[in-house]
């Protein structure tokens, strides 16, 4: 179970959000919503342990993620804004390297099966350079099929996907949740997922200048 209390995020002098509480239990999903620049990506990066929170703390199975970092990362799959696809490598090579770096090397047959299932049949050996935007996203999403991670944190997983791919991805996410997995994602579109879940709406509640506000109160 992942839980966070009182999270806050600063960008430069501005506080993007503060006092964010959340928790995700096995089989649950959490959708993070918010306008552009509300700090959705920042929140996901914080939850993944990529950047420190300006305030608050995040716990995985009751332990702060900073303390159980390796254990946490072994159980986490994070797909960021940038899909981590190398243009010069083929889809297969991309998938295999990514899996090896994540500590779970894939044999070729499994990798090819995953790529075929995600709709890249016959394109396994093409360099990612010649694939379309949506196809590149699919290469990244193929990692989900091979993943044993308990917690998935996905930043805009539906972006650049066609209708069929969106349905397929929903199926993959449902399977993950049915297995007792946890899911945190951002999306601009409404998504129908099985299992129970919540939506977290991020909004900038704090004015840009904390000092100015404090003086206003005093006056």
């Amino acid at each position, binding site marked *: 179970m992942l839980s966070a209390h009182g999270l806050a995020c600063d960008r430069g002098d501005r506080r993007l959000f503060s006092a964010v509480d959340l928790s995700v239990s096995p089989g649950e999903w959490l959708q993070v919503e918010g306008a552009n620049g509300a700090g959705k990506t920042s929140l996901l990066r914080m939850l993944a342990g990529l950047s420190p929170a300006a305030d608050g703390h995040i716990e995985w199975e009751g332990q702060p993620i900073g303390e159980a970092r390796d254990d946490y990362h072994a159980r986490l799959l994070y797909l960021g804004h940038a899909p981590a696809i190398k243009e010069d490598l083929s889809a297969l090579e991309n998938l295999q390297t990514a899996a090896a770096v994540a500590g779970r090397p894939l044999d070729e047959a499994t990798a090819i099966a995953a790529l075929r299932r995600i709709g890249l049949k016959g394109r396994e050996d093409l360099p990612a350079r010649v694939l379309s935007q949506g196809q590149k996203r699919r290469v990244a999403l193929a990692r989900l099929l091979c993943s044993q991670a308990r917690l998935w944190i996905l930043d805009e997983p539906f972006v650049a996907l066609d209708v069929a791919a969106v349905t397929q991805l929903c199926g993959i996410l449902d399977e993950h949740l049915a297995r007792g997995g946890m899911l945190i994602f951002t999306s601009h579109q409404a998504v129908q997922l099985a299992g129970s879940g919540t939506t977290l709406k991020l909004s900038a509640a704090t004015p840009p200048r904390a000092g*100015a506000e404090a*003086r206003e109160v005093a*006056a």
Partner: protein
Amino acid sequence: MNWGSAGEFFAMGGYGLYVWGSFGVTAAALLIEVVLVRHRLAAVRRGLRRELAADRDTQD
């Protein structure tokens, strides 16, 4: 006392250029640093005071 006259003092036994070049540049450099740092702090304060005054104006 090493020097008979002021002239002797400034001539530094023929090494005047080098000795005064060293001490002079050092003194100048340290002075310039002091001036620059004072200016920096003064500039920050001025900017902040202006901002705060603007804030008060909008409140009134």
